[in-house]
């Protein structure tokens, strides 16, 4: 029974990993992966020894950490709130509306947010009616990162909430009934039944999202940034894009390999930590 799955992973996931040798080659399409001359660590040198790289790495970590720190809890809160709703049509409507932005591309969303947050845009017009001076949402580094993180959460919150809502249905109803008989209120039920029930899913999703720490959201940033925030939002992906002059597979593979290796280490590390803290029960493996 394992065979079809194993064959699938072998052909489509493990065999292509052989392509990683391109990271150590001066790849020429006409000569193939094997025929291309070896480049040693030149591709990695091109990637790391540029003085813009440390800044790109730092920005990537800052933005991704913010996304992880704030964005991780947002869907949990939304799922918990939705779970408390008793009016079904309202719950479903909210769920659909929050899920919807997940399907929009950042090319479109970027244009909308640029308009919404511009100096003379609707957001600042609303603030102005309260007597607040225009806020440079798009042109000051910290504000721009705030916009990135908040709009990023807004876009993906519904998708995350669906997963938690599914996990919530798996919690036994008897537990709630027993707790209610014992006199536990809503808050106590949430704290002692719902949250512990969600913990395994939370840990799995956390471990997986930690692996994405070096991907700070290229689509979103590339469609929204501008010269005034290049310095604070130049991430590894935008940096690599600038380095590439089309089809320079060696450097692109080296960058991808770097991100994958770091991601793998983070996943292994987080998993080990989860095991240690929970006595070997909550890790992925």
């Amino acid at each position, binding site marked *: 029974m394992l065979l079809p799955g194993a064959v699938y992973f072998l052909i489509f996931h*493990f*065999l292509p990993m052989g392509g990683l040798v391109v990271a150590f080659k001066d790849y020429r399409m*006409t000569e193939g992966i094997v*025929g291309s001359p070896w480049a040693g660590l030149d591709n990695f040198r091109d990637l790391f020894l540029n003085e813009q790289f440390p800044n790109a790495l730092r920005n990537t970590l800052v933005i991704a950490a913010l996304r992880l720190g704030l964005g991780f809890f947002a869907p949990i809160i939304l799922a918990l709130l939705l779970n408390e709703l008793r009016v079904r049509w309202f719950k479903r409507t909210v769920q659909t509306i929050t899920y919807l932005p997940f399907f929009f591309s950042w090319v479109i969303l970027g244009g909308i947010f640029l308009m919404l947050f511009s100096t003379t845009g609707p957001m600042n017009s609303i603030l102005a009616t309260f007597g607040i001076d*225009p806020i440079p949402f798009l*042109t000051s580094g910290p504000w721009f990162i705030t916009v990135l993180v908040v709009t990023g959460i807004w876009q993906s919150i519904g998708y995350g909430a669906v997963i938690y809502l599914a996990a919530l249905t798996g919690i036994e109803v008897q537990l709630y009934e027993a707790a209610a008989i014992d006199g536990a209120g809503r808050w106590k039920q949430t704290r002692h039944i719902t949250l512990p029930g969600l913990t395994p899913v939370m840990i799995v999703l956390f471990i997986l999202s930690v692996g994405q720490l070096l991907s700070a959201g290229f689509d979103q940033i590339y469609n929204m940034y501008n010269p005034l925030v290049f*310095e604070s939002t130049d991430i590894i992906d935008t940096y690599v894009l600038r380095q590439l002059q089309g089809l320079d597979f060696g450097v692109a593979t080296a960058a991808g390999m770097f991100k994958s290796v770091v991601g793998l280490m983070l996943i292994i590390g987080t998993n080990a930590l989860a095991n240690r803290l929970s006595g070997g029960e909550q890790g992925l493996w």
Partner: protein
Amino acid sequence: MLNWRYMISASGMIVVVVAYFAVMTPDRESVEARALARQGQVEWSTVKNDPLVTHDLVWSFAGKAESGVWPQRLIEERFNIRLTPRMIVSGESYQTKLPMQLAAGDVPDVFNPGNSTMLRVYARHGFLLPLPLSMLNEHAPHLVALVNRYAPEAWSATTYDGVNYGLPTIWYDGLHPRTPIWRKDWLENVGIERTPETLEEMEEALRRFRNDDPDGNGRRDTYGMSGDLMNYYTTFSEVFGAYGVLPFGWMVVDGQVVWGGVLPETREALALLRRWYDQELIHPDFVTDRWYAEIGRKLYSGRIGYHNYLASYEAFDPDNPQSALAMMRRLQPEAELIPGVPPRGPAGRRGMRVWGAGNAAPVVFGAHMADRPEAVVRVLRMLDEIASDTDLYIETRVGRHGQHWDWADTSIGPGSGAAFMPPLDQAMVREREGFNAEIMLAGASPFAPIGADPDRYLPYMPQALVEFRERNRKIQWGLRDVFGSPGNVPGVQSSINGLIQLQQTAFAKIIRGEEPLDYFNTFVEEWHRQGGAVGLELAQDHWRKQRRVLEEMGSP
């Protein structure tokens, strides 16, 4: 905890995978043959063009032309060749489909690489046949002379590692700048009768647009202009041009190649823009605006009264729903637009960036064509003949008079311009039948991918268009990068985009007053340190080499 047995078996798997790839060794001989071809070891001077021999060619250009269409048969019969057209829809799919096709080993005999960046990439990967300039000069003298006359910088775009790989296509319209346009009714409302000609007049108009309520709504909610910092080719191009600089480009000053962005004149222009921003003549959103989107919308919705990158004959066509005038009228029916001129600066200079006539996609040959030099020569001679035979040139683009096209206004005849006859008046039908979607007499067409001297086709264009261009988009106002575009200098490709970003950030901070004007000096130092100094040396070296090549070909 880590499962070491799992890790070991996984790494064992990777070793197996690498070994698998190692076994799949490509054919050694073909690799060497291609390597030889790359070095260009064809004795071109001994290659003869025998018109009786039929040559079969796989032909890949931008378009949707079907096989066996009229323009294809025209050149097949006349030049005794047989084409297998493999057209690729232009635009984004060209950038994704062609590389995949090439990587799969399916290299067309004659094709269009898309753009100069991709030409270099394909040359680096060994897909292209070197085309020595001496050979081009021998077999396509008209086309070489055309390039040398209108766009000598185009040779920079077809050269990789000191070897020429392409035959540039001349796109005459690229010599004409997209000049500014003004809100005519706003100018009248604030008491200005003549479109601004100088920087001072421009400043005065922009100031009145800001302060004198040009839309008469009683609120101070209008600005003079905006700007686009992300697309460097439009960034306040007319203001920098008034000081004689191309801020994002290589220029030649006193025989030396310089980068426009670090010149003292650029600092002067920045000082002026800084003042304009401080006086609120420039919209506060200019940093995030883009010329084709937000700036256009600001103009059409009456937030600003000036756009620096719109003027073309088409922009003022009220019948075309996509024209600037039509878009504007949809939101503001009473609005009127008028083309302006690049403003004259303190030293009497004016100008705007143009891409030049050599920025269109060149013609290249697959590296395997080294085995068929006669076919290469046939194609080059064919293209040269099309470019030097007016009737043939027109026929390859719009077909025969009376059969495919007629004068747009038959009562006027020539002067009203050639217009396709039904069913070719439908763009989709035209493309399928191997003609261009638009009546573009300049530049490439699917089966005749070269340009020609404008004198050959200008009589077939609407005279109103030709006159508009001569009056409002004068060639002498165009400022050209001496290499066509910043990345065309060999060796700067990995640093140039970073340097451009550095400059965009510095410009934004200086104009917005976030940094003092003296910050320009800091930027210049930083620019040199981050690769600009090396870039200047490379550019100077490249300039010397290009000059030598052009002199050898007898170009002025």
